[in-house]
């Protein structure tokens, strides 16, 4: 393989990668947690408390606690607040203020509205792909 062929192959791959990347960047998703909103602040709080170490969103995160993508529609606000405030025998109490708990709730509401995270809702096809 000559150097010329190698460089050309590398350029083709790099350009394809950049095009795919830019295409993904500009994918038009509707915004469900605009910057500065309660949901966005809740997202920051989620990161600052490192909730992802134990919990998952869409199955991504730690496995010590349950997936919380759809916790907002599966549990009441009071139930979620109780957990946030008091913790469990595994999860520490984070002693959040009322404002912070409302921000977390807004975040949970925003991710809940983005879709259903249960893999049981996905239908496998014979060709190995999946349908929603």
């Amino acid at each position, binding site marked *: *393989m000559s*150097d010329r062929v*190698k460089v050309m192959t*590398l350029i083709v*791959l790099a350009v*394809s*990668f950049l095009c*795919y*990347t830019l295409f*993904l*960047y500009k*994918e038009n*998703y*509707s*915004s*469900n*947690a*605009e*910057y500065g909103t309660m949901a*966005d602040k809740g*997202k*920051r709080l989620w*990161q*600052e*408390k*490192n909730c*992802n*170490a*134990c919990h*998952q*969103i*869409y*199955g*991504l*995160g*730690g*496995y*010590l606690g*349950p*997936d919380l993508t759809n916790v907002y529609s599966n549990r009441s606000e009071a139930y979620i607040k109780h957990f946030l405030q008091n*913790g469990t*025998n*595994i*999860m*520490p109490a984070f002693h959040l203020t009322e404002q912070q708990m409302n921000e977390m709730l807004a975040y949970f509401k*925003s*991710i809940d509205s*983005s*879709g259903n*995270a*249960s*893999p*049981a809702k*996905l239908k*496998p*096809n014979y060709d*190995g*792909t*999946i349908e*929603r």
Partner: protein
Amino acid sequence: MELLKDKKPISHLFVITGLLLLFSTLIFGTIGAFQYVFPGLYRESFSFEKIRPLHVSSAVFWILITACGSVLHYLIKKRNGLWSNKLAQWQWFLFTIAVVVILITYVLGIFGGREYWEFHPYLAIPIIIAWILFLINVIKTIKDFRKQPVYIWMWLTGTVFFLFTYLESYLWLIPYFRSNIVHDMTIQWKSYGSMVGCWNMLIYGCSIYLMDKISGSEKYSYSGISFALYFLGLFNLMFNWGHHIYTLPAPKYIQYVSYGVSMTELLLLGRIIYYWKSSVNTARKLYHILSYRFLLAADLWIFLTLLLAIAMSIPAINIYTHGTHITVAHTMGATIGINTFLLLAFVCNIFKIHKPKTEKRITAGLYITLVALPIFWISLIIAGVLKSNWQMHLSNEVPFSAMMQSIHPFFVVFLISGIILTIGFFVIIGNLLAAYFMKTQEN
């Protein structure tokens, strides 16, 4: 900073730092495993949201720093020195300071980042600067890009793309990228998926260099097949990350692209090692016996991890493995079975360990890990299968806590095998460091 002043190559500092990080990876990993078996352990003072990033970041930096050290070391050998030792010293210094501060902030409960890079985004700055220094040093040291072996291409592309993907993983700081959870997670896992491919480029490049050295022939590194396989690996690095997010309500073409490209990178290395093994003669094998053994161990794990990776890259199977401990088993197989064994092969080679007594002890440590790792791996797979069954069929009737209780026995096996694994690695790390410092004193 004493070590910086003596005549030892700068790469040794990277490797020693890496070994210390492997040590902390094992310590925090063991504490985390205890927390799985005894839920609530250290709940208020040192809970899992602190332990997990301490373990994961130590592991990620063990891989990154040792991979950088190995690349620098082999560049020194290949080009009779680095373009700038000062630059490499600064890179090491920035890396070390950043890692120490990151680990301290975790202990203090200061986060703000995301999975795998949980530290505050400000702490990403020294890492980015260190990586740019590394990139400059690699490019300037190579200097002439004509007729280079495949591993030089791997080091270059791995270094360039790592910088790109690392910066990409911080796009969430821009409101446009963080305002929609699905878009945000798509970009996040795009960058993570490619990033792993980037450090694998550095590590696999080093392993090809080492194989050349052991076999005494550079024929493979310049062959057309090695470049064809390298480009296929690069193609995977760029496009096969979608298996992380098959279950997200993201556009369908991501699934098709990723499924189509699939995970063939490990197969490539398996093939390379398979062909290389048959060409090594006994005398050379014996001279590099420790490195050879670690490479063989990695060879075995490449095939095991490959099987799992191929299965997980099929979307219809992925929905059963996603969000379960099968994913953890895959990560552990790749990071311990492949990355760590390969990196230890480089360390043995870099430190020139030839004392029979030390060789014997390190081999004993390797055998301990080889016994414990399959048990560790299988316990995670079984726990994952049971969680998968719950996720797909029982989650509406059986609460999460009851499911976790039902897989508890496998966490116990995971903990015990994890402790044995840790002991095995401690034997290896302890003897490597002892042999290195004894040699330094003798010299």
